[in-house]
């Protein structure tokens, strides 16, 4: 089943690349997404057996992140069809500087999307650290062309930064892998194979110093990909320049995958009794990321960048949660779900707004509620969902993390956490309310008179799910979350 999960998108990608006509290719995209989602759903029913001598397996964390990825990709695929329909081909003027530019060929775009899915799936299922690395590097390479879909110099710049910074980071993670091997090798030269289960089993025999070194490198390396401050620098550029559907996937799925990379090693550290070492760092990075996000969210003139920084913030919350450990880890897992769904939803809606208003600047957008009633409503829903107000899911997860912080007596952390959340709320509320409310200017009204259902339904579904998760956390989900949380201490 795991192999199928990997093979399906790859095959679809190849097919898509060589398809001439647009319409069938688009539907192939959706079909692949649906099948992938179906397979993922199947793993909830029947445990997927490990393959390739345990290199590929699906444990609770993997299943969790895989499911998030798959759901998001399904939504993104649906939205993407509507998006690609809306994108007229050929050269057109860029609304920022009025230069001419064209889109990348749609075939390449679709193929890369599918390969991107394959890579992320690989990350979720691989239990061999080397393979994990390969997967994460692959996500970078497959997503770079996606960011450069609109071929103008800003997206190119974003792509370049993304490539450069992430490659460097991931190279460091590779070093981390080697250090891990060192840590796993015994005096007689034999080595514990770098498979998660084996490492966890023989964790006590690992060489502590090298394990720590490996963890630091993983943290910096994958942290770069995950967007932890101060390694997040590529993130706002890439998210603001990529097509919204891609931004949604980057923010909702990719960052989680990178986080999974760190978590896998944390899993080993926990087994080796080194949990504390990692947790301290995670708490630090978490708060730092939230703080940096707060700095840039307040008074952010570009709403896609604002969403990107909010992703930095939420990655911070995740790391903080895992760093605090105990109940907070559960909170973090739950928050990963909530954030991914909400953020993806927001990026998709942002795409609609961008298409109608032809501007990424908060100041130019007014009266979305009137020009695009549904999108406007979703936009406000997203505001309250992402800032963790009840009755949305994020409230529960943030509450859990906050409670854990207080229960562990980490008062300073708790206060900082609350203050930063409040600051970011002020920033986002100010910007997003300005956009949603007020009279709609005439051109916006004219352009936005229609909202194609394909660009409305996916975010609407996501919003519904987030609201549902706020009112009721299904038992199956809770169990998976708890298993995952237990793995990471």
């Amino acid at each position, binding site marked *: 089943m795991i192999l199928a999960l990997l093979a399906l998108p790859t095959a679809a990608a190849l097919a898509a690349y060589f398809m001439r006509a647009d319409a069938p290719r688009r539907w192939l995209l959706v079909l692949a997404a649906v099948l992938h989602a179906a397979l993922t759903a199947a793993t909830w029913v029947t445990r997927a057996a490990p393959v390739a001598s345990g290199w590929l397996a699906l444990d609770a964390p993997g299943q969790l992140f895989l499911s998030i990825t798959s759901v998001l990709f399904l939504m993104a695929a649906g939205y993407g069809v509507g998006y690609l329909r809306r994108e007229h081909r050929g050269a057109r003027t860029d609304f920022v500087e009025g230069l001419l530019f064209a889109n990348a060929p749609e075939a390449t775009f679709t193929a890369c999307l599918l390969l991107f899915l394959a890579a992320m799936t690989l990350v979720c299922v691989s239990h061999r650290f080397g393979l994990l690395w390969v997967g994460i590097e692959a996500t970078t390479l497959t997503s770079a062309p996606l960011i450069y879909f609109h071929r103008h110099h800003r997206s190119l710049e974003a792509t370049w930064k993304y490539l450069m910074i992430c490659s460097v980071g991931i190279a460091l993670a590779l070093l981390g892998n080697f250090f891990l091997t060192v840590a796993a090798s015994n005096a007689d030269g034999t080595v514990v194979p770098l498979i998660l289960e084996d490492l966890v089993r023989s964790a006590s025999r690992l060489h502590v110093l090298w394990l720590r070194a490996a963890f630091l490198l993983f943290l910096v390396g994958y942290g770069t990909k995950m967007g932890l401050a101060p390694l997040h620098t590529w993130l706002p550029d890439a998210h603001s320049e990529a097509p919204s559907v891609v931004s949604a996937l980057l923010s909702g799925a990719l960052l989680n995958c990178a986080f999974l990379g760190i978590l896998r090693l944390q899993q080993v550290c926990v087994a080796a009794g080194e949990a504390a070492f990692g947790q301290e760092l995670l708490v630090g990075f978490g708060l730092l990321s939230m703080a940096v996000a707060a700095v840039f969210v307040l008074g952010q003139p570009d709403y896609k960048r604002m969403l990107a920084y909010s992703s930095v913030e939420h990655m911070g919350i995740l790391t903080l949660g895992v760093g605090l450990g105990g109940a907070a880890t559960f909170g973090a897992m739950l928050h990963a779900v909530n954030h991914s769904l909400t953020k993806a939803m927001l990026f998709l809606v942002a795409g609609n707004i961008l298409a109608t208003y032809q501007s990424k600047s908060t100041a130019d957008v007014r009266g979305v509620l009137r020009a695009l009633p549904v999108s406007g409503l979703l936009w406000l829903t997203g505001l309250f969902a992402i800032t963790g107000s009840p*009755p949305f899911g994020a409230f529960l997860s943030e509450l859990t993390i906050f409670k854990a912080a207080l229960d562990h007596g980490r008062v300073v952390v708790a206060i900082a956490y609350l203050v930063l959340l409040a600051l970011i709320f002020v920033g986002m509320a100010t910007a997003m309310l300005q956009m949603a409310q007020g009279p709609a200017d005439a051109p916006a009204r004219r352009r936005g008179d229609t909202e194609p259902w394909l660009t409305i339904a996916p975010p609407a579904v996501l919003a519904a799910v987030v609201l549902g998760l706020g009112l009721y956390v299904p038992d199956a989900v809770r169990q998976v979350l708890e298993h995952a949380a237990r793995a990471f201490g």
Partner: protein
Amino acid sequence: MVLLLIAVALLVASGIAALLAQAVPRWCTRCGAGGAMVACTLGLVPSVRVLLGGSVESLHRAWAVPYGAFFVEADALSAVFLLPIFALSGLAAVYGAEYSRGQRRLGTSWFFFNLLVGSMVMVVLARNAVLFLMAWEVMALASFFLVTLDDEQASVRQAGWTYLIAMHLGTAFVLALFILLGRPAGSLDFDRFASSSTSAGLLFLLAVIGFGTKAGFVPLHVWLPEAHPAAPSHVSAVMSGVMIKTGIYGLLRVLAVLTASAAPPVWWGWLLVAIGVTSGVYGIVFALAQRDLKRLLAYSSVENIGIITLGIGIGVLGMSTGRATLSALGFAGALLHVWNHAAFKGLLFLGAGSVAHATGTRDVEELGGLLTRMPWTGVTFLIGALAICGLPPLNGFVSELLLYLAALDGATVPAAAAAVPALGVIAALALIGGLAAAAFTKAFGTVFLGEPRSGAVAHAHESGPAMRVALIVLATACGLIGMLSPLIVPCVGSAIAALSHDSSASVHAEMATAVGTLRTSALVGGGFLALVGLVVLARRRLLSARSVEAAGTWDCGYAQPTARMQYTAASFAQPLTTLFGGLLRTQRDVDAPRGWFPRAASFATTTPDVCGQHAYTPLFAAIGRGLGALRWLQHGEVHLYVLYIALTLLVLLVWRLG
């Protein structure tokens, strides 16, 4: 309990129905308003039953969210707040059905109105922190959308923003409070809440800030005078009349927990009294300076919250000095004032709504002489105004009398700890009463009496039956509570018992003398009314035979008195506003007449909120600047970004492994 939950469900359902019926305004209103009316009538039954000593019902169900449980209970304290919520919301719905006719986005407004009412009920019923916070935030969001219903106006958007931020920050404090309360027992159910004596002070402060933001304690009130005028009048009535009381409810609920184990320290009472005095005086002084009728009423809500807080403060003092009479009377006054304020503030906001509806303006300087054109609105508004000034024999007087009795009782105890604040309370109540009289004679006098000050009044008409009914019912309530107070006050006895951890029998015993006082003063009030009747009859007899002519007002020798020569509201309040000028910081823009033959000249004063103007705005600006200074981090140079990575790595390696 079942009835209550049905009522909530009905509210939500009818709200959604109204939303779906968006297209057909008539059905929209029928679903929304109708549902609200039915639900409120349903809900009144159990609330009243509990108040009359009915059994306390509770319901505890598991709920699949972290730390959550569907745990609701309707005890006496809840019932005290449920009663006004249902009563006022129902009437507001009746009023709104007519008031909001022909407005855009009717479905949205009814959806959020019913959601607001439902969430208020849930807030009062909830006994689990997660459930409470859910209801609490839904309440905030629903009211936010109602406030920004008319979001084309920049001022409304600004008000909405202020409101939303204030609510969210307040909620953060409540969140921290609940989690700390739940820590000892490891559960967020209210009945498991407990506090160690060490943390009690902190928890109390958290509660005061968190719930005080909702209630509008000065200086946390800044959102209130912005948000309430922005909303449609029936919504303002609900927000001002009952919604901000949920803050008081929360405070009382937490106080009951905090004082369960040990008597509260004296400084709690002092703090509450101080807050009460500040809010009371501040609120009414600013009310005096307003020219927007609804803004004036909003500030007067701050004042009344202050009066309620005075009562709570005295009650707490009574508990910490172990003087049962004091606590009983203090809490009684506070709780009764919660009801009274709901009655007359609701009435006044609805009246203001009718005026705005009929004349299209809320600026008192453009109104005048409406009593003849809108007799019903006028009379009911007058009753409301008299009641809010605490004049006998209306309801406002009753609660203030209770507070006076408590304060006098406190003043007669030897212990200075209780006596000094008690005397402060007396002085404050007296001053507030006097200023309130000034503020509301100004409001009623300039809006309803004299000559019209602008054309806006010319085609003013009395509002329709539905709106009138709501006004009349509320006015009657003001009268009845005033006259029947001896029967009504005992109803809050068991709630007080819950607050002061006392047997309700002893509470009733403590209140016995006070009830006697109320009975006599009610009698005197009745006598007073009778005397009025007699004098009026006598006068009529005298004048019946004689000549009664009509003429112009004695104009002291002016040739042609015009309506514009009337004393304006601003000049009426001027002596007091100058007296409190240091607090008000009124901004004048004067264009003085120049030369021998001056052309145009103008003089305008505006009184923005001091706290907003001189505290919060600068603070937010400072924070913005401070954070803005850090933005160089994202300078766009990729090679330096890589440097960040390198440095982070080196620092970590050297620090953690070196």
